[in-house]
C-alpha cells in the first residue's frame, strides 16, 4: 500500500491507453468492478488496524474517485470519437439534387384579373359577372345597338340558334364584349353602382392580333354627380397603379361606341423599339381602352332615369394588358396550353396580388 502513488499512476496509464468502448469496459471492470483492483484493495482493509483502516480507507476513496473521473472522461472522449467515425461514414454528397417537386403556375390572364380586382377594389368597385351566352337584348339592343345598327358589324358575332324561334334576331350570341354585364348590373344592383366585370368575350376573328376568344374587363360607375373628369381620373389612377409607375403619360382621343357618349379611347405613352416596348415614357402612343359617359338610352334600358343618374363606363382587353405589362409577344400563344409557355410566362402560386402586398413579384422566385 505504500506505493499507492505508483498504483495510481499505473491505473491512470491503463485508462489512458484504452482505445475503444470494449477496452474501456474491460478496464472499468478490472479497476472498479466487483472484483476490480480497487474493490479488492478496499476489501483488504478489514485486516488493518482501526487507525490504519481510516487512513488507508480515505486514500483508497480518493484513488477510486480519481479513477472514476478518469474513466468518465475517457468514456466521453471515446463516445465523441466513435460519433465522429460514424458521422464520417454517414457522409452523403449534398450536391445531389433534391427529390423532384413541381411548382405549378398561374396563367397570365388570371394574374391580370387579380391585379385589376386589387386596384379597382381599392377604388370601391365590386366584381360583377354575366353569362357567356347572351341574348341580343343584353349584348346589343340595350346597349343602344338595335338590329340594323352598323356597329354590330364591327363585332364579328358568333350566333347560337334559338330553338324557340326561327327569327334570326331571337338567336343567342356568344357575348362580343363584357358590356352586357353593365345592363345586368343596372337591372340587379341598387344605385349607386361601381362595378368591374372581367370575363371571356368572343368574336369571329383569328389572325396575328385577334383570337376568337379573348378577355375583357368592363367598368361601370353610376351615381348622381359623376362626370367625364372622374372618368379620366379613375382611369389615370388605374394605369399608374397597374403599370406600377409614378406617372404614365395618357392621351384621350374622341371615338365612338353606341353605348357611351361622349366616347373616347385612351392611349398611354410608350417607347417602341425593335425588340422592346417600354411603357411610361417615349414618343409613341399605345391604345389600351375605350370609355365614355353612359348613353342615356343605355341607362333607360337598365331601368335608370338618365335625368337623375349619370356615369361612365370603360372596357379594356385583359390579354392585351398582360402582353403590355409582361412583354408577352403573341396573343395566340395565350390559348395554346404549351407547357413551356405556361412555365415561362405563368406566375408562381404564391403570387397573390394586392394593393397592400404589391401587384406582383411577391410570390417568390419561380421554380
Amino acid at each position, binding site marked *: 500500500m505504500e506505493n499507492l502513488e505508483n498504483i495510481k499512476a499505473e491505473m491512470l496509464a491503463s485508462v489512458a491507453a484504452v482505445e475503444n468502448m470494449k477496452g474501456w469496459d474491460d478496464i472499468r471492470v478490472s479497476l472498479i468492478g466487483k472484483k476490480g483492483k480497487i474493490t479488492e484493495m478496499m476489501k483488504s482493509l478489514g485486516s488493518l488496524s482501526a487507525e490504519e483502516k481510516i487512513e488507508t480507507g480515505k486514500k483508497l476513496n480518493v484513488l477510486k474517485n480519481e479513477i472514476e473521473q478518469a474513466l468518465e472522461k475517457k468514456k466521453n472522449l471515446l463516445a465523441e470519437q466513435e460519433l465522429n467515425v460514424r458521422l464520417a461514414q454517414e457522409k452523403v454528397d449534398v450536391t445531389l*439534387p433534391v427529390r*423532384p417537386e413541381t411548382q*405549378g403556375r398561374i396563367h397570365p390572364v*388570371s394574374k391580370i384579373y387579380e391585379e385589376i380586382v386589387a386596384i379597382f*377594389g381599392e377604388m*370601391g368597385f365590386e*366584381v360583377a359577372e354575366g353569362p357567356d351566352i347572351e341574348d341580343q337584348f343584353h349584348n346589343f339592343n340595350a346597349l343602344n345597338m338595335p338590329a340594323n345598327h352598323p356597329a354590330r358589324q364591327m363585332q364579328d358575332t358568333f350566333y347560337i340558334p334559338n330553338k324557340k324561334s326561327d327569327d334570326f334576331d331571337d338567336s343567342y350570341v356568344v357575348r362580343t364584349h363584357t358590356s352586357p354585364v353593365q345592363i345586368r348590373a343596372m337591372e340587379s344592383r341598387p344605385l349607386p353602382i361601381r362595378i368591374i366585370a372581367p370575363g371571356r368575350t368572343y368574336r369571329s376573328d383569328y389572325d396575328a392580333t385577334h383570337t376568337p376568344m379573348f378577355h375583357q374587363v368592363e367598368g361601370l360607375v353610376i351615381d348622381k354627380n359623376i*362626370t367625364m373628369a372622374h372618368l379620366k*381620373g379613375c382611369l389615370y389612377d388605374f394605369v399608374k397603379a397597374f403599370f406600377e409607375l409614378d406617372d404614365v403619360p395618357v392621351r384621350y382621343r374622341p371615338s365612338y361606341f353606341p353605348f357611351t357618349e361622349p366616347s373616347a379611347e385612351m392611349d398611354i405613352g410608350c417607347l417602341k423599339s425593335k425588340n422592346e416596348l417600354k411603357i411610361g415614357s417615349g414618343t409613341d402612343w399605345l391604345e389600351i381602352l375605350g370609355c365614355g359617359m353612359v348613353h342615356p338610352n343605355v341607362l333607360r334600358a337598365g331601368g335608370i332615369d338618365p335625368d337623375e343618374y349619370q356615369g361612365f363606363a370603360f372596357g379594356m382587353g385583359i390579354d392585351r394588358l398582360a402582353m403590355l405589362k409582361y412583354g408577352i409577344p403573341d396573343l395566340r400563344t395565350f390559348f395554346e396550353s404549351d*407547357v413551356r409557355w405556361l412555365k415561362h410566362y405563368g406566375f408562381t402560386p404564391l403570387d397573390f396580388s394586392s394593393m397592400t402586398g404589391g401587384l406582383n413579384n411577391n410570390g417568390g422566385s419561380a421554380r
Partner: protein
Amino acid sequence: MKFSLSWLKEHLETEASVEEIAETLTKIGLEVEEIYNPAAQLEGFVTARVECFEKHPDSDHLHVLSVNDGKEKLQVVCGAPNCRHNMVGIFAPVGSLIPAFGEVLKVGKIRGVESFGMMCSEKELGIGEDHTGIIVLPDDTAPGLPAAAVLDIDPVIEISITPNRAECLGVRGIARDLAAAGLGKLKPLNIKKIPGSFVSPIKVKIEDKAACPVYTGRYIRGVDNKAETPKWMKSRLAAVGLHSISPLVDVTNYINYDLARPLHVFDADKLNGDITIRMAKNGEKFVSLEGKEYTLDDKSLGICDEDGVQCLGGIMGGAEKGCSPDTINVFVECAAFNPVVIARTGRKFQIDSDSRYRYERWVDPNSNVLGSDYAVQLITEICGGQVAEPVMDGEENFESKAAYIRPSRMRDFAGVDVPKGKIMEILKNLGFSVTDEGERIKAVSPTWRGDIDGEQDLIEEVVRMTGLDEIPAESLPHGKFPKQVLTPVQQRAVTVRHELALRGMYETVTWSFTDSKLAEMFRKSDDAVLLYNPIASDLDEMRPSLLPNLLLAVKNNAARGFGNVALFEVGPEFYGREPGQQYQAAGGVRSGMTAKKNWIGDVRPYDVFDAKADALATIAAADGPWENVQITTDAPSYYHPGRSGALRLGKNVLAYFGEIHPAVLKKTGIKQRVVAFEVNLSNIPLPRSTSGKARKKLELSAFQPVDKDLAFIVDKSVSAANIVAAARNADRDYISEVRIFDVYEGENLPEGKKSVAISVTFQPKATTFTDKELETLMAKVEVEVSKKCAATLRS
C-alpha cells in the same frame, strides 16, 4: 378611309403640314391609322445631270452615263429608253434603299461595265406607277437637290371612321371637320349644272317612299366608256386603293369617296321601260354584278325595269344591265334610301359594298341632285355625250330634328366649363343652325349628320372640338365601403387556382369552344350548344366539359416532346344554350410520370388517386365539405369504368375523377394514360354564414391516444370507404381516426377475397383505458365491420 393630301386640298384651303393634319384628325375623333409619305423614303436621293451619254460597248439598249450629283461625277449604266444627254433626273447613290424593291443599292457590274448608282423611275421611288422610263425633270433643275423637294409627292393618310361619322367617308366631310377644328377653310363646291337638251326617254317612279324618299335619274347619250380616265382621278382612286376600271365606274367611285355620295350607272340600252323603285316580290331573283344570284324577299328594295330587279337599292348593281366598255347611252341613278332597309337587306344577303357601307350609316338625303350633277359633269367631261333633262320622284326636303344643349351640362356632365358663346360657335362651324334660347341652345344638325339625336350628341361635338385634354382628371370620390370586392363564389375560384398551382399543376386557358366530334362524348345534357357560324369546324360547340380541350392540350404537348404534364383550367362549362345555362368548373389532367427519371427514384406514373386528390383539394380550396363527400363509382362513360368515381353530397355531384377511358383517348389521338378530374364549383354549397366566424372550442385530452391495428378479409367488391365508415361508426365517442394501411389480394387468401388492414385510433377522455376497455372497443369495431361489410377478422 384613305385619301391623299392633294385630294384633301381640293376641299380644304390650308397651309398645314401632313403631320399637323394628322394630329388634328386624331384629336377630333378621326383616328389616323397610318400616314404613307413617300417623301420619307427618299432620303439620299438627289437630282443629277447626265453629263456624258455613251452607248454601252456590249449592249444595244444600255448606255453608260457620267452623272453629276452636285458633288461628283459617277459612272452609271442605264437602260431607260428616255435617257438622254444633259437631262436632269433623280439619282439613287450606292447605299440607298430603293423603295420599290426594299433593297439597298450596291455597286453593280452590268455586262462588264461598273455602275455606281441608278437613275430612277417613278415606280422605283414608290411615288407612282410609271416605269416606262426614268423621271425627267426640267433641264434647268440644279443637280444635288433632295428628291423630295423637287418631286410632286402626294402623301396618303389613312383614318378609321367610326360608324356615326358617315359624312367623313367622303373627303369633303373630313375637310369640313378639319376646317371646323381651325385647320383651314372649307372651299366651296364648284359643280356645274348642265341643262338637259332633250326629254329623258326613261322615267322614274317610287312605289315605297319610306324606303326610298328621293330618286333622281339622268340620261346621257353618246358617251365613250373607252375614254381614258384622267390621271388626277386615277391617282386619287389609287390612293384609296381602287383600280381604274372604266370612266363610268371610276366617276361613281370617285364621287363615293369625294362626297360620300353613292351613285349607280345603268347601260340605258339594256333597260326595258321605265325605272320603278319598289319592294321585291318574295322569291324574285336578282343576279349581282359579281354574278351571284339572290332570291329576294318583300323587305328588299329593288330598282326595277320591266324585266325585274336590276339593282338591289343602295347595295349593289345587277349583272345584266350594268355598263361595259361598249356602253353608249347611260342612265345615272342618285337616290336616298332608308338606312334600316339597306342594313337589313345587306345583312340578310351578306352583301358588302362601299354603297351599302355608306347608306346604312347615313348619306345626306338632300344630296341627290348635287351628286347627280357632279356625276353628269365628270362623265361628260371625260366621255362626252348629250345630257337629257333630269327625272326625279320624291322631294329633297329632309329636315333634321332639333336637339338642345344646356351649357351647364358641359360642367356637370362633361366635367369642363365651356362658355355658351363658344358652344354656339363650335356647332355653327360644324354646320348646325343654332339659336340661343337662354338656358339652352337649340341646334338643328346639317342634313349630312345622321347621328345627332339629343343633348349628349351635342356635348360630344363640343368636347371633340375643344379637345378631351381640356377636361381635368379627377380621382373618384370615396364611394360606399364594399363588404368584399370578390363575392365568396368569385374568391373561391381564385383560391382553387392557387391551390392547384401549388399542387404542381400549370393553369391554362383554353377556348370556350371545342370540337363537337369530341364534345359528344362529354355532354351531360341533351342540348349540344352548337354555334351557327363557328370560326373553324373543330371549334363549333360551346364546351360541355373542360376535358376535351385539356386532352387536346395533353396531346399537343406530347407531340412537342412533353409527355409529363399536369394542367388545369378554371372556366365555364355549358349545359344549355340559354343565357345562364353554364357552370363554373375547375378541371385538370395529369399524364405521364410524376417526374423525370432521377437518382432518388421518386418516380411513378400518375394514377387515379392523383386525380382524386386534386378533386378533393379543389373542393377543400373552394371551402366545400370535402370530408363529408360520398364517393360513388358512377362517373360518366368517358372515364375508365373501374378506375373512376364521383364525389357527391347526396344527389349533388361535386366532382368526377378517374382515368380517361382508353376509347376516348384513342378518339382524341392520345397514346398515353391520362387521369383527370372536374369539379363543378357552382355545385359546391357555400358555408353557412349564420354560424359566425368563431371556431368551435378546442377540447384537448390529457391522455395519449392508442393505435390498434386490425385486418379483415372481405369480398373484393367491398369498398374500402365502407370498412372505414363501419369502423368509424363502431364508437362515435372514443374512435377519433381510422386509416387503411394495407390492402392485399392474392396468395393465402380465398378466391374473390381481399384483406384490408386498418389502424384505429382510440382517444381516451376522462381516464386512460384499461386493457378491458380497449378490448371492448376493439370488439365493437370487429363486430361492426363484420356486420356491415361481411368481413371476418384475419388471424
